[in-house]
């Protein structure tokens, strides 16, 4: 029936609506909109996934977040603090100029010079001491300490055209935004112009109308596989229902994150649904700062029950993860026993905690809380897939073992501020490892909070395990991949066996599209138009 109505839609709508059905054009409905066309303005996945069509970094992450060659064909560490990247030959920018080390130096130089950035890319360049040309086709990058993740980090910094940006003939790198030969540095708004937004990617910027659409056209001089589409239109459709309606009614050819409850309907209507495990873990954090009183816990005479490992274990065992995945997530998630889905880098194959309410109850009794206690569970209600629903289900299960749980669901705008002010004794949140390896969640979520070293910035449960910290710090400066992976796996096991943080499930990312399309589902949840192909 749906097929029929789609056909009817085409007949009624005439050419404008159905042109997208032809092989040449592609229209995609996105969940959110890029805030700028400047790839160095706002570090935000929404921006990255769109701009990767126009710009390319030295290294790329494949759908499984493995680092693969981008504009650099190979790279090696010369010594602990120096890397050499060999540039790809024959690459031309969309304005015709050839890729050279100058473009690379310019790109890294510009990062700290972007004004008004709401989330700067300097976290990737702060440790870079020097970038120099090594002959015509390579660059040397020096860092202030051993950084095994540099090739991964650089995948976040697409290369700009120094010519299009108006740089001088020679650009010299100086750390901290003091580069020479930068000319007048174009700012975020200048990138709305296709003359400045020049990259090496398969598509060129045609126009960006904020709130409405972004249009790309093919770049015929692309060095790689020729792009499939003449024109790609990306439209932000933030509400779930309307986004799916846009697909069903033929307005767009493909959408990202269709609401999972609607997938059956989408499939029945003859559309293709693909999904992949993402790198995003949904977890519960528990307040474990032994020096502070836990907020919003009652019935424990002022003690913080979460400091007791048995209570933390009880909470984990009380949660029926399978039921949450099946009922709340509609099967589009995977129960989690780690902070990254195996076999990603640094996982150790730890088993998922088994649902065992009886044992949970016993543990609570042993810990001295036979009647449980009262606690508040904080959760955002507009950030992760069905976030507040998952929190409600968790609360339901905790109530069963006697922990009277109140759900405090809020918009992300309130939730994150309150969480960072440590107002929740227990909260639900998610973490996507942008580097695709275990150091990311460990460093941010469970390493001891320390302003000086920059560890544990998102550790609002204030879990602290000095032994783990030591191991993690050592791992983060180990260049040898095999060694590092083992160390990270060990560090993760330490935390999880201590129930320092409670993994719930890995989100699954879903895309829905017309039958004739294909897309390689990505763990980083990006929707990259240039990777959408006409199915053969």
């Amino acid at each position, binding site marked *: 029936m749906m097929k029929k109505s789609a056909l009817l839609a085409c007949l009624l709508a005439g050419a404008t609506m159905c042109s997208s059905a032809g092989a040449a054009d592609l229209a995609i409905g996105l969940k959110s909109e890029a805030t700028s066309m400047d790839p160095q303005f706002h570090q935000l996945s929404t921006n990255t996934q769109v701009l990767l069509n126009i710009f390319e970094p030295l290294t790329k992450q494949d759908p499984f977040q493995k680092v693969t060659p981008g504009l650099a064909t190979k790279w090696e560490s010369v010594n602990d603090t120096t890397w050499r990247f060999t540039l790809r030959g024959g690459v031309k920018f969309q304005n015709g100029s050839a890729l050279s080390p100058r473009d690379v130096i310019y790109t890294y130089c510009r990062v700290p010079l972007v004004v008004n950035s709401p989330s700067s890319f300097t976290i990737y360049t702060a440790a870079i001491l020097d970038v120099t040309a090594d002959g015509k086709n390579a660059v040397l990058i020096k860092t202030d300490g051993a950084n095994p993740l540099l090739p991964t980090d650089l995948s976040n910094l697409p290369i700009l055209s120094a010519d299009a940006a108006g740089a001088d003939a020679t650009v010299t790198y100086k750390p901290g935004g003091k580069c020479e030969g930068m000319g007048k540095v174009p700012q975020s708004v200048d990138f709305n112009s296709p003359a400045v937004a020049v990259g090496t990617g398969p598509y060129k910027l045609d126009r960006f109308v904020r709130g409405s659409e972004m249009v790309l056209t093919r770049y015929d001089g692309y060095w790689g596989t020729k792009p499939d589409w003449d024109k790609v239109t990306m439209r932000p459709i933030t509400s*779930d*229902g309307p986004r*799916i*309606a846009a697909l*069903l009614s033929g307005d767009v050819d493909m959408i990202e994150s269709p*609401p999972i*409850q*609607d997938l*059956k*309907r989408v499939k029945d209507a003859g559309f293709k649904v693909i999904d992949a495990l993402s790198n995003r873990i949904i977890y519960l954090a528990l307040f474990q700062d032994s020096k502070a009183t836990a907020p919003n816990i009652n019935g424990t005479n002022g003690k913080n029950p979460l400091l007791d490992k048995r209570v933390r274990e009880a909470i984990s065992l009380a949660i*029926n993860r399978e*039921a*949450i995945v099946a*009922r*709340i997530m509609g099967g589009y998630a995977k129960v989690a026993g780690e902070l990254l889905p195996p076999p990603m880098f640094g996982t150790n194959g730890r088993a998922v905690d088994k649902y065992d309410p009886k044992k949970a109850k016993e543990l609570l009794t042993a810990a001295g809380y036979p009647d449980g206690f009262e606690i508040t569970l904080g959760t955002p*209600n*507009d950030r992760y897939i*069905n976030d*507040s*629903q998952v929190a*409600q*289900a968790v*609360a*339901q*299960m905790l*109530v*069963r073992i006697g922990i009277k*749980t*109140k*759900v*405090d*669901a*809020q*918009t992300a*705008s*309130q939730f994150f501020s309150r969480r960072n002010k440590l107002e929740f004794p227990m909260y639900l949140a998610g973490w996507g490892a942008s580097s695709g390896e275990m150091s990311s969640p460990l460093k941010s979520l469970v390493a001891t909070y320390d302003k000086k070293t920059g560890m544990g910035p998102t550790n609002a449960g204030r879990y602290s395990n000095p032994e783990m910290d030591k191991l993690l710090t050592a791992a983060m400066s180990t260049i040898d991949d095999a060694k590092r992976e083992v160390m990270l796996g060990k560090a993760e096991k330490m935390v999880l066996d201590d129930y320092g943080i409670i993994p719930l499930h890995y989100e699954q990312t879903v895309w829905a599209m017309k039958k004739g399309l294909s897309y390689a589902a990505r763990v980083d949840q990006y929707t990259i138009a240039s990777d959408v192909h006409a199915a053969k």
Partner: protein
Amino acid sequence: MSDDALTAGLAPTATAEPLAADSPFKRLLHTFLEDKLAVIGLVLFTLVVLLAIFAPLIAPQNPYDLAQLDVLDGGLPPGSASMSTGGIYYLGTDEQGRDMLSAILYGLRISLLVATVSLAFAIAIGVTAGTMAAYFGGKIDSLIMRMVDLQLSFPAILIALILLALWGRGVDKVIIALVIVQWAYYARTVRSSAIVEARKDYIEAAHCLALSHSRIMFHHLLPNCLPPLIVVATVQIAQAIALEATLSFLGAGVPITEPSLGLLIANGYNYLLSGRYWVSLFPGIALVLTIVAINLVGDRLRDVFNPRLQK
């Protein structure tokens, strides 16, 4: 703040004349009952109120008690049996395993509570402010009316978010937010009719009798501005319920574990396109029936109160 949040516009509909002092209540009732549609509305409305009041006695489940919910019963279609207790879910369940029938009954309670309480406060504040503005004029008038301007420019979602941030989430905060949003409409409505009334002879006469300001305002001026208010209020109840739903839709409504009718609809909105029609359809129908009933009654009341329209 929502598209439909403004009804101050109804003021001029309210053309009713002051009630004649001797018009007996019985006659009004009799006139009211002449209209069959209004009677149906009244019956429906009474039924809805009774259902809401006695929800805890009627509902098979307490949908606000998490211990009574089972996520394994989530998303069952109408008429399914519970996997754990064997009870029948006549209207199905939502994804938490919440019995929709119980949730609607309880939700109705919250919605009616939120709507009527916020309405009562908003009217009290708005009417006082509006009457004072009209009666005193001058500085007081400008002060109040500029506050109204300010209020009408301030979106409800922002008010709700600020209140939630300051005092946490709760039904009472939603009520406060709705009061803050709505009082301005009444103030403006009352002021516009009171300004006209205030220049009439009987008010002049009251002045000559040297009656106190408050006596003139609340005993003489206000009663003559009331009939339009009653009419506006019936429409506004619908608005309050819809506004509360909109706040829930935008993520700033009542607590999710204690859904109102509006929150149920906002939740169900996510399921409107999927096969689980019951999650959104039934609360929607309950809401529409309630509002239609209120308005049928309200419409008739308007006609009843307008003596000139009687045959």
